[in-house]
């Protein structure tokens, strides 16, 4: 598609051509990436360990001993 070629051409001239713009783009993208990666991995970790975390068992040990 020529629009894709156009997009890559503009991306190259705007961002990748100069090292300074490349660095700025990398640093700016690192913040949302960090948040997304941390949230994603934590969610996956909680998923594979469902039922074992404290948040999952919070209600079980109340004053009135509930059945597990």
């Amino acid at each position, binding site marked *: 598609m020529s629009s894709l*070629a156009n997009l*890559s051409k503009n991306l190259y001239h705007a961002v*990748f051509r100069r090292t300074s713009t490349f660095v700025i783009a990398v640093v700016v993208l690192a913040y949302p990436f960090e948040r997304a990666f941390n949230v994603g991995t934590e969610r996956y970790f909680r998923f594979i360990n469902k039922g074992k975390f404290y948040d999952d068992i919070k209600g079980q040990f109340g004053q009135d001993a509930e059945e597990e």
Partner: protein
Amino acid sequence: MIMLPKSQLIQAVSRAVSRGTPASSVLPDVTPPLKVVVEPPPKKLTNYSLALSTPNSAITSSCSIAGVSQVRWAHTDLKVPDFSNYRRDQTKSSSANAVESDGIRKMTSYLLVGAGAVAATYTAKAVVRGIVGNLSPAADVVALAKVEVKLSDIPEGRSMKMKWRGKPLFIRHRTDEEIEAEAQVDISTLRHPETDLDRAKNPKFLILIGVCTHLGCVPIADAGDFGGYYCPCHGSHYDGSGRIRKGPAPFNLEVPPYEFLDENVVVVG
């Protein structure tokens, strides 16, 4: 040519030159050496011998003022090895259109490197946070930084002294008369003007750090001329709001940060 030592030749010629006679008359008679036939070296495929056989007629040359001026040889006998392992697939064939594949070629490289740079930035941030965070106070120190006090333990008119962050902490449950008396003080007469309400969020309870602002002794509660504290070291008198009234201390007794969790519980720090 004549085979003579250089020095002899020069000497003979210089003599001839100084006398003004032609040099040929003084030169000795030398028979030319016999012609020696030297066998040509065996033909080898060296760069040298190949260079001798490179064409000097089949050339292209270009000459221009502002452009490239060059002479190019046709190196059709040189073998160039196959570098296709190091080439991009889009440009391997000689008939491929480089302009069409330019976007893909550039973008794969730049995007991969950019993604790697983002991941490396993430790693660097984590490492720096870990190292700098190591300098922050340890969990047990943070746990001792705040103290919770049950105010119902203090009867009215009495004060309580406790240790907080290594310093003495005074908590006084004030009576209504004391609160009234402090509210009526004219702050313009004070060395360190502060209203009572500025110092005590809940006027019923006065919470102070019991360190004299002069040289650091611990003042005595319910002593002194102003119904507050008296520092025995150098005679500083503080009033019922901990403000300095008489004596060498420059500032009022310090009020620590605190919060009332509810009617009876205050968290200091």
